[in-house]
């Protein structure tokens, strides 16, 4: 298959000044206000947290190869809690916004930086402080409440490091709030002349909608954690049944954020997929306005459905009915996107570079994840499925099969822009395939396990479930190993890869019109936008490298 990207003619040319080589030394990195450097700082730290969270995943899957488990139940409780806490708060929530969003958003709208560059740096520092708390908790044996910190176990009965974990999440939450705040103000106030709302890339729409959720939802989980912390210290509190408190109130306040949080996690991924599909189908996304509007609809509707996590915990059944009804609604805008993406590919000029392979995987896996969510939002079936492996499989399909896959798609798509180097396409395709196989082998059996009744967060299970569990662990081993491969070849490419040129994919977008890697201020002069977005024509003739 002919290579479909451009590389600049090789000359022993001097590397032009760019954001990476303009300054050297640790101070220039730790005190930077350049959104691109901050993005790379995040790439590094988020990858580290992903590896930590992933290690816990491997230990969980190892444990579950045996019906009686490998570790004592108390340890197992800490394993799945730490896996959840690290993955949710320190990987998934920041991932695309803090890395790709930070790097690309200003460029995509023709700005020189985000609205508040120093706040951006503060955001990274807060993330690091939160991560230090998390690592401290890991080192001291973890917390065992589940990532959901339910009262009264978290407030009264757990003797693990609940306060430290809550503190870490609290601080990381403010990192997230500041990122969202920055994005919102940037999109409103810093678009280049001619860059109207309806000319913005869908990636920007997605991050704007994500920012809205971040600022509206995160403060509520912050206060929930404060209340848990104070109750733990005072030995009494508002979630304490001994004084008439209701533990379910904690769940209301917690899930008011944590449900929208899953859309914080997936919306940026959807933004990436819109960009990748447009480029590799050489076509303007079908129904651009609908995709943009659906991002906003998801942001708003996501705040109306949190009780579907609480159908069987004691919430009023009438409130449950309302939540169930609204949860069906929130699926619609996501479905709109899926149909628009496939319609974009129809009669497009599709090629199968590695970012596009990830995009295909995303569409399939996210659809399965989304559809299985409907079983859970239906109260009657949720009664049987709540707290089983069906739920675990559902959210891993959307979070890993959706979000992580989208993150990989984006990292691959924009790596040439971020580093100026092209990675190895054969290795990228191999890794994508292995990740796809490993992922499905890990999580498809879990749907069956959940349907058969295997509870989640249990350290032991009936022996008849062992085969499926072993299959799942085998898949996890493949998945875990495969996820390491991109780390290797991407770093290798950064140092030794061929120079990529400004626009190796011949994509449309302001970020592709500037050099790779970009200069510190992105544009020599603020561009004036005269074209619609995604002004794709037919694929031009390529030079084979």
């Amino acid at each position, binding site marked *: 298959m002919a290579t479909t990207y451009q590389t600049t003619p090789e000359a022993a040319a001097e590397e032009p000044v760019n954001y990476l080589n303009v300054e050297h030394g640790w101070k220039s990195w730790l005190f930077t206000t350049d959104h691109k450097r901050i993005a790379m700082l995040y790439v590094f730290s988020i990858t580290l947290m992903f590896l930590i969270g992933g290690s816990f995943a491997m230990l969980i899957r190892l444990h579950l190869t045996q019906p009686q488990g490998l570790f004592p139940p108390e340890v197992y409780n800490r394993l799945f809690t730490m896996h959840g806490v690290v993955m949710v708060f320190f990987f998934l929530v920041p991932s695309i916004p803090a890395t790709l969003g930070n790097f690309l958003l200003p460029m995509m709208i023709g700005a020189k930086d985000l609205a508040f560059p120093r706040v951006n740096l503060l955001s990274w520092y807060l993330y690091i402080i939160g991560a230090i708390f998390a690592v401290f908790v890991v080192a001291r044996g973890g917390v065992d409440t589940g990532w959901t910190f339910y009262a009264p176990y978290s407030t009264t009965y757990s003797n693990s490091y609940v306060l430290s974990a809550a503190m870490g999440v609290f601080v990381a939450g403010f990192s997230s709030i500041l990122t969202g705040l920055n994005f919102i103000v940037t999109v409103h106030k810093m678009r280049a002349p001619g860059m109207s709302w309806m000319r913005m890339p869908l990636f920007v729409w997605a991050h704007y909608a994500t920012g809205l959720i971040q600022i509206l939802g995160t403060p509520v989980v912050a206060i929930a954690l404060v209340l848990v912390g104070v109750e733990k210290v005072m030995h009494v509190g508002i979630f304490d049944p001994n004084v008439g408190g209701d533990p379910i109130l904690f769940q209301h306040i917690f899930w008011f954020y944590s449900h929208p949080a899953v859309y914080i996690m997936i919306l940026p991924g959807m933004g990436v997929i819109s960009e990748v599909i447009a480029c590799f189908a050489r076509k303007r996304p079908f129904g651009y306005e609908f995709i943009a509007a659906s991002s906003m609809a998801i942001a708003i509707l996501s705040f109306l459905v949190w*009780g579907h996590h609480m159908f069987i915990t004691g919430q*009023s059944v*009438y*409130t449950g009915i*309302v939540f169930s009804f609204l949860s069906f609604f929130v699926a619609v805008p996501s479905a709109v996107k899926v149909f628009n993406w496939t319609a974009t590919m129809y009669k497009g000029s599709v090629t199968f570079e590695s970012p596009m392979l990830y995009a295909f995987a995303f569409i399939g896996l996210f659809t399965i994840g989304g559809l299985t969510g409907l079983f859970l939002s239906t109260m009657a079936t949720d009664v049987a499925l709540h707290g089983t492996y069906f739920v675990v499989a559902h959210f891993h399909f959307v979070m890993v099969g959706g979000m992580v896959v989208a993150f990989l798609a984006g990292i691959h798509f924009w790596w040439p822009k971020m580093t100026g180097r092209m990675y190895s396409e054969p290795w990228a395709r191999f890794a994508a395939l292995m990740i796809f196989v490993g992922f499905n082998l890990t999580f498809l059996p879990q749907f069956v396990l959940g349907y058969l009744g295997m509870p989640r967060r249990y350290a032991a299970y009936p022996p008849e479930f062992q085969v499926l569990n072993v299959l799942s662990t085998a898949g996890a081993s493949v998945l875990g190993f495969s996820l390491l491969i991109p780390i290797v070849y991407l770093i290798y490419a950064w140092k030794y890869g061929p120079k990529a040129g400004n626009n190796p994919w011949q994509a449309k977008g302001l970020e592709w019109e500037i050099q790779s890697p970009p200069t510190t201020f992105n544009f020599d002069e603020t561009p004036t936008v005269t074209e619609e977005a995604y002004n794709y024509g037919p694929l031009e003739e390529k030079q084979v490298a």
Partner: protein
Amino acid sequence: MSSEVKEHHHTHIPEVGTLVKVFVALIVGTAITAEVATFDLGEWNVVVALAIACTKATLVAWIFMGVRYTSQLTKLFCVAGLVFLSILLLITFSDYSSRSWTHHAKPWATNPSLGTSK
């Protein structure tokens, strides 16, 4: 760039008289709130108190914070914040209100030692 002449606009400069009038209204509102609480109006006490509080808050936002003279966007943001707060309050509240619609779902309402109004 730094030596170019630029036009720039102020935010609206309030009149001292306006600020003082709002100040007086806020103090009077506080006094009224305290005074009304000396009467037993049943459920209406909290309604009146919150109504006065909302009025005071609106005055502070509208005049002291200058929302009156800000852009549509800023006004929209203020409203949006309140809308989502209402969603949190109303739906959470609806859970507790509607639990008794099925049998015995409000244990605190039937246990006399827990001190309820019913």
